[in-house]
């Protein structure tokens, strides 16, 4: 079958790879219909996550049709339309039972790497490096889905393929940021990053009762899109001081909840960007936490900051003083998708949540390299490239 493979830093190519097989009783094989790029893939492309092998199939946000199920699969049948969460979960360990799905104990087949790196291993992810299990990704005609009953979720009739696609990763990630960030009725919420994840977090904050939501980015087309889709307020950090704008919007208090949806390759207009870039090139710092610093600095006293952006290692100049003295709660997580996906699909069906506008560039898999190029360079007003299989 054809699949889009990581072949080296900033080098992805469509290759012929063997078809996936059922390897476990609880596996199923999915015929992929739609698979989208995600900001997390950019960290693989740039080599920020150096646990890739040439020939690894990438992609982790997808939906499709079941074609084969193992003897231990009870919830899905060939022909079913499902959305698959980017995280593979067993559904029965303590973490899964407590709805902390991305922390599943039984799905990372290479636990040693992250145990040494982070002290403990999170669950496995599709197409997201050998540190996260080395599973083949979804930019392919077929994909093997382990623990299929728990990892994949049926799509209701009323939800079309494109809308369901984003219930795999960006929508549940955004929802988790607002939910676990503790958004309450009447809150002012600031979201850094107007990509798919940031936009979904902004919408989630509104639906959870936030009175004002402000989205921060430097790409006007992305800010405009968030404004059009959800009626949020926007701040272009290349033109306006984010701190001043947030103080003005909150009567001098600062936002109640700050959601960071940017990640380890954050960009900045100030001198700290050069400092972080130089340091990360020299390997003195692995990640660039620019938006995290800004969120902590601008959050109101006693407020909450949720880190959705992906980080892999150590960071520098972490504003510990602000965190401690302002009494902040700082949390982060990989998405606990299965906790939210059924509810999100219902909200999509009822029209409360729109997601399909995120797919600005739909193309065949053969154009995979171009899809990543557009997404990475934010060209042609690209928000997400989606591959149709």
């Amino acid at each position, binding site marked *: 079958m054809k699949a889009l*493979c990581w072949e*080296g*830093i*900033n080098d992805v190519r469509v290759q012929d*790879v*063997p078809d*996936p097989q059922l*390897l*476990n*009783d*609880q596996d199923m094989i999915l015929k992929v219909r739609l698979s989208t790029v995600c900001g997390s893939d950019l960290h693989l492309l*740039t*080599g*920020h996550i*150096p*646990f*890739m*092998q*040439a*020939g*690894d199939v990438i992609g982790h946000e997808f939906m499709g049709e079941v074609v084969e199920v193992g003897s*231990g699969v009870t919830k899905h049948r060939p022909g079913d339309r499902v959305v698959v969460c980017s995280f*593979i979960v*067993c*559904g*029965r*360990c*303590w973490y899964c*039972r407590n709805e902390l799905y991305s922390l599943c*104990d*039984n*799905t990372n*087949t*290479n*636990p*040693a*790497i992250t*145990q*040494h*790196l982070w*002290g*403990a*291993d999170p669950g*496995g992810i599709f197409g997201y490096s*050998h540190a996260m*299990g*080395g*599973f*083949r990704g979804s930019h392919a005609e077929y994909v*093997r889905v*382990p*623990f299929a009953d728990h990892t994949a979720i049926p799509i209701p009739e009323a939800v079309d393929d494109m809308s369901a696609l984003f219930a795999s990763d960006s929508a549940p990630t955004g929802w988790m940021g607002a939910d676990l960030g503790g958004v309450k009725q009447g809150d002012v919420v600031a979201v850094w990053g107007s990509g798919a994840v940031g936009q979904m977090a902004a919408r989630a904050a509104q639906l959870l009762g936030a009175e004002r939501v402000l989205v921060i980015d430097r790409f006007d087309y992305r800010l405009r899109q968030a404004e059009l889709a959800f009626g949020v307020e926007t701040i272009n950090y290349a033109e306006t001081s984010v701190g001043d704008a947030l103080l003005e919007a909150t009567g001098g208090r600062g936002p109640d909840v700050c959601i960071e949806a940017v990640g380890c390759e954050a960009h900045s207009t100030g001198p700290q960007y050069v400092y972080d870039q130089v340091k990360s*090139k*020299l*390997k003195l710092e*692995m990640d660039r936490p620019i938006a995290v610093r800004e969120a902590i600095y601008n959050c109101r006293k006693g407020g909450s900051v949720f880190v959705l952006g992906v980080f892999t290692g150590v960071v520098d100049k972490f504003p510990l003083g602000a965190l401690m003295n302002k009494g902040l709660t700082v949390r982060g997580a990989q998405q606990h998708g299965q906790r939210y996906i059924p509810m999100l699909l219902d909200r999509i069906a009822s029209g409360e949540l729109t997601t399909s506008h995120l797919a600005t560039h739909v193309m065949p898999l053969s154009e995979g390299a171009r899809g990543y190029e557009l997404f990475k360079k934010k060209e042609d007003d690209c928000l997400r490239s989606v591959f149709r299989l």
Partner: protein
Amino acid sequence: MNTAGKALLATGVATAVAVARRRRRASHDDTSERWLAVTVNRAPEEVQSSMPDDLARWHDQVEISVRPATGDKGTEIRVKSTGEVPAHELRLALRRAKSVLEAGEVVRPDTAPTHPGPMGKALQLVTNRAGGGGRL
């Protein structure tokens, strides 16, 4: 490849080598030094009565202790070698036993790519045995 790219690859290899080195050290000196443990999300009676083969097969070379975990966290299975069982074998056995008890099977890894490249080969050295490594 640009310089930044090379530096990033070097980090990956360094991490891989560090993991491999740590494991080599581990298999020499911690065969029987401490209890290795996993917590299983099942009741102690269930764990006792259905100990998976992965662990049961070592019964004459290891001490096995089963006790309730604190809170609602299930059951702690702890093992300590009384003979020459290498720690990585015990880690692997504990992880497999836990997965079987909780989820009914152990997820098999997807097949590795055919042309991993030099960095990928270094990584494969680690991942081939990574199931028996780590901090467990």
